[in-house]
């Protein structure tokens, strides 16, 4: 493993997880839905994997599939309930869902005791959370075997989003974001496609949560509080919501910035916050703003022009 990678492996893992989370909120934002339930679905994914690996011998890969399936199964009815709401009302309703998930995780054992004979059984372990046993990761092709699945997962999501972006699905989601009334008069079943975007986003978040479990190792309800949902939203807002590259840039910057600013010691959080504030003020369209790429291209092509003249 190269030295840079081995020194920063934990940051790299979290960047990848956060990219997946940023992409999960991107797909709903691209449909014009301000849904903040991603932290909740992340918790569902993480707890699913944590419970399966502490209570059974089912392998992690099966747990991951089960976590994503559970995310889909819950997103369908929740989506049908809340997607009639718009804007801030949808945000509040989905935020409420995230809190419900967190509180269920906090009091999960009481629920289990209602149905189980064994009153001593501890599965969720309340505020302390579930601690997974540490296994030293084996290194395959320069990366630990805990990083590979996350990297592959992010690649698959990028492939899915890029393919959808250029298909009729991407076009339909964009039309709903811009004017859902006009879209409906073209025969677009708005409710149907909003639900599709919501379920896809929730499934991606549940998968990211599941993949984060072996890295976080302690799965406790505090990981999935309100501010986690806001962090996820910030990846998309800072990076830009018009292209799937946006949340990738946003998650990378926002996850690595605190590490890069470590030398500032006590002033780190202030400078970190200041950088985020300034970039949102001066780059309202995000880091993936087409104008920035245009500027970048011009800067790169400058020397060539001089050679010609």
């Amino acid at each position, binding site marked *: 493993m190269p030295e840079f990678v081995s020194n920063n492996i934990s940051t790299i893992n979290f960047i990848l997880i956060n990219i997946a989370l940023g992409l999960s909120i991107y797909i709903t934002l691209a449909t014009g839905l301000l849904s903040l339930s991603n932290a909740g679905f992340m918790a569902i994914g993480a707890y699913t994997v944590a419970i399966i690996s502490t209570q059974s011998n089912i392998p992690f890969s099966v747990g991951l599939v089960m976590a994503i399936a559970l995310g889909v199964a819950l997103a369908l009815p929740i989506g049908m309930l809340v997607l009639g709401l718009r804007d801030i009302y949808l945000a509040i309703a989905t935020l409420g869902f995230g809190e419900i998930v967190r509180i269920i995780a906090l009091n999960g054992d009481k629920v289990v005791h209602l149905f189980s004979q064994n009153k001593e059984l501890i599965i969720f372990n309340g505020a302390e959370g579930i601690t997974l046993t540490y296994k030293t990761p084996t290194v395959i092709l320069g990366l630990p075997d805990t990083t590979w699945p996350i990297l592959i997962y992010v690649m698959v999501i990028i492939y899915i989003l890029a393919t959808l972006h250029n298909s009729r699905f991407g076009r339909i989601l964009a039309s709903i974001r811009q004017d859902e009334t006009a879209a*409906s*008069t073209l025969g677009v079943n708005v409710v149907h496609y909003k639900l599709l975007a919501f379920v896809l986003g929730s499934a991606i978040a549940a998968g990211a949560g599941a993949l984060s479990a072996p890295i976080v190792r302690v799965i406790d309800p505090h990981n999935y509080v309100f501010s986690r949902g806001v962090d996820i939203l910030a990846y998309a807002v800072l990076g830009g919501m018009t292209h799937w590259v946006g949340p990738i840039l946003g998650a990378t910057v926002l996850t690595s910035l605190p590490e890069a600013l470590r030398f500032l010691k006590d002033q780190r959080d202030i400078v970190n916050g200041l950088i985020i504030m300034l970039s949102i003020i001066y780059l309202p369209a995000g880091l993936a703003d087409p104008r920035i790429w245009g500027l970048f291209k011009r800067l790169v092509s400058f020397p060539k022009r001089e050679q010609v003249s």
Partner: protein
Amino acid sequence: MMPELSKPLMEIRNVTRVFGGLKALENVSFNVPRGAICGLIGPNGAGKTTLINMISGLGPLSDGAILLDGQLISGLAPHKIAARGVGRTFQNIRLFGDLSVLENVILGHHLRQRGTLIETLLRLPRSRSSERDSRSAALELLVSLGMEHLANVQARALSYGDQRRVEIARALALGPSLLLLDEPAAGMNSTETDGLCEFLLSLRESSLTILIIEHDMDMIMRMSDLVVVLNFGLKIAEGPPDFVRNEPHVIEAYLGSEQ
């Protein structure tokens, strides 16, 4: 089964729409014959746009019924009415500004696009060939409007007149049997209006039925087979252009009475 040609394409039956205490439309009834261009005129606030919104499912009827091809369409969701073959444009143009002109028109074609989510993700032939077909159909429509050079321009960058024409192309991509146009010539100069008239008349050749709201009286009188006049939510006249033009009620509604 072949549709009966003598039967009207659309029947508006005793349609009433009440907003709070205000009657925007009161007991309006008329038929739109198949293949006709029907003008819907009246002073501002007469209820013309309200009626078009109700035909396309954007507002509920307080009373009455709307039938297309003898089947009830009032009460259906907008996307289902669109699927029955009703296309429309809006008074305040509602294009998807972030998308290109071509993408806007392809969206109108989306009901005929094939390929499930899985087929699209795996880039299977059915979804790819369907995408190609839609693309060429949309391009053909733009060619017929003389706008193919604007295909890849962002819709919001177009001139006002061009935006109106793209909106018509998008509605036509749906393959409608009934086209609802809400002031399509607003903001166009006389040359553009003449071009639009010619284009709309050419559509009638292809057996499309058009219901058109327009303030440009010359255009309405020149194109329409039938004119319906609304005033304060009531139908005050209906008939061929020459008849409606000389109807005392209509003259009064537009010019005011002598008293």
